[in-house]
């Protein structure tokens, strides 16, 4: 069990319901998931199939139960074309730059989350164990910077980046995303530190352990699962972020959401199959994370303010 801190939740008595409820929930869940499912299906369609009326929803290997007109022939072309395709009929295939954009998304998110995790965990430990005068005020200001509309922060940051020449560089966007992830990391990690029982720590302090030892040998090992959850949540938040990336990344540092929004750009001639393939690739990590973090999801989406 990766996330131990949640074990006590499961011992709580919850009413049991049988397979009848499973059936109802399955129907509802599938309807709810339908929009995502359609995109994944569309990613395997040829361009003309993606635009077909009535919609062809089923791959052709299901044709023994589905009428002829509703099936399409699955193809992997879209996934290949995400990375390399010819822009006019007959021309040689060109690199679309999407390998670069995916790399940028991973690199920028990874780097900034690591930085934020390092700085934020220290700060969270400080806020949790050595409250300052006006501790709550600091925490409130920190959370507010995260709650602000992105546009409020971006206007002055753009000016600042223009003056310092950070616009369009990895350094600039990574710094900004570190600041973007920091409030989340601090609140999240503080909620984990607050939950630890102080007894062991106090015992260690009485035995003469240094504060550094208390942090590294006692506190940190207990919140490793929380650290992992925080990191993964930060990765997803950064991975999905759009406005900062739109305004502060250049051609070289562009991330996937920005590139994706530019693919939708013109109304006419959007290649929906291709777009769906980009989205599918973009979604895979998100869906995996949702699966593995299910128990920490509540805490994650509320920045650690609601634990159970």
């Amino acid at each position, binding site marked *: 069990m990766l996330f131990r801190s949640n074990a006590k939740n499961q011992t709580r008595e*919850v*009413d*049991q*319901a*049988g397979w009848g*409820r*499973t059936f109802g*929930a399955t129907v*509802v*869940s599938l309807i*709810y*998931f339908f*929009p*995502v499912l*359609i995109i994944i299906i569309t990613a395997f369609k040829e361009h003309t199939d*993606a*635009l077909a009326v*009535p*919609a062809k929803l089923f791959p052709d290997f299901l044709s023994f139960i589905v009428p002829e007109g509703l099936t399409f022939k699955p193809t992997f072309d879209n996934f290949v074309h995400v990375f390399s395709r010819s822009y006019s009929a007959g021309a040689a295939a060109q690199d679309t730059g999407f390998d670069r954009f995916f790399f940028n998304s991973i690199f920028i998110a990874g780097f900034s989350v690591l930085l934020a995790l390092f*700085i*934020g965990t*220290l*700060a969270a*430990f*400080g806020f949790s164990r050595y409250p*300052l005068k006006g501790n709550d005020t*600091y925490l*409130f200001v920190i*959370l*507010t910077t995260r*709650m602000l*509309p*992105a*546009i*409020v*922060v971006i*206007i*002055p*940051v753009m*000016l*600042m980046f223009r003056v310092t020449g950070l616009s369009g560089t990895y350094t600039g966007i990574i*710094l900004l995303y*570190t*600041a973007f992830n*920091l409030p989340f990391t601090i609140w999240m990690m503080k909620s984990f530190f607050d939950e630890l029982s102080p007894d062991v720590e106090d015992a260690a302090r009485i035995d003469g352990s240094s*504060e550094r030892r208390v942090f590294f040998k006692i506190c940190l090992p207990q919140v490793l699962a929380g650290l992992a959850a925080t990191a993964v949540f930060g990765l*997803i938040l950064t991975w999905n972020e*759009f*406005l900062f990336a739109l*305004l502060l990344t250049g051609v070289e540092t562009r991330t996937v959401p920005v590139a*994706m*929004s530019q693919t*939708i750009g013109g109304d006419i001639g959007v290649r929906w199959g291709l*777009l769906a393939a980009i989205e599918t690739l973009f979604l895979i990590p998100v*869906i995996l994370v*949702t*699966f593995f973090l*299910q128990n920490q999801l509540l805490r994650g*989406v509320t920045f650690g303010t*609601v634990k159970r």
Partner: protein
Amino acid sequence: MKTTDTPSSSGNALFTPSWSNWLGALIVGVVATVISALVLPAITTLWIAGAASALVAVTAVVNAWGRYIGGLLIAPAIAVLVVMNIFPLLWSLGLSFYNYRADRQTLRFIGFRHYERLINDPVVWDRLTTTATLVVLTVLVQMIFGFLLALLFAKQFPLRRYLLILVLTPMMLSYVAVGAFFRYYYDPTFGLVSQVANLFTDEPYVLISSTGGAIAAIVIADAWMWAPFVMLLVLAGLVSVPKYLYEAAAVDRVPAWRRFQSITFPYVKGLLMLALLFRTIEAFKLFDIVFILTDGGQSTETIALYVYRQAIQFNKTSYSASLSYVLLFTVIVLTNLYLYLANRRAKEG
């Protein structure tokens, strides 16, 4: 740092060159920066200011080492936030009193003129009304569907864990991806939503071409994305209801509606309130999905999108800075309320 109210241990020696003399470093740094601002070009001043702050930081750390652990631990975080958030925000507050435009060189102090203008600007009020409409509708729809989903998943049943993932996924998606999905579904000719609508009416159904339709389109997409969030919070409340209360109610033959009203609802109320506030804050800054779905067309331009337009497309930097302070103020009030309720809940539980 606030906690360092006694300066270095060496007492009165303010100008002693020592690695722990942070106050001396601060004074030297400020003096150097002011002098260079007067005589040197701006870019050099920036470097000098940077070097001075680094020196102050180093001396402050040396001074605090081993004594003010709390301050030392949070200092890096505070520094990053000050550089990347607080300082830019103060800068834009300053700018809002000038007539600065990013595409021109002029800079003239005009005091509160921008604020007077935005209060009297009917366009701003119109955008605020649009935003309010969207916030009320989308939050309402989310709350209703979130609640219903939570009731469905409140019991333990086979495969529950896997089915929950299907429902929770939308919440984790990127606004851009969701916007792109729904652009495809709303497409007038081959979009799925249009095709379904065509079964009932012969008219070509173009959802995004009317104001009502465009608002509905945004609300559907946003509510689909965030109803799982409400569900998650309500679920936490439902699970926390002690089972014996229901057992007692069953013994007393309390009708289902009364049972919900007097047992279930009180346990969910607090979390419902938190969900409401959290989603209101988030919906208030609705930007990405509108940007992708309608780009503000059919009078769906939210206030965030309006500020974006003013700042980025029309280069009205100062005016948009003053506008953004209206947003900032609103969000601060809402966040405060949210934290108050969250803390109260944490203390009770």
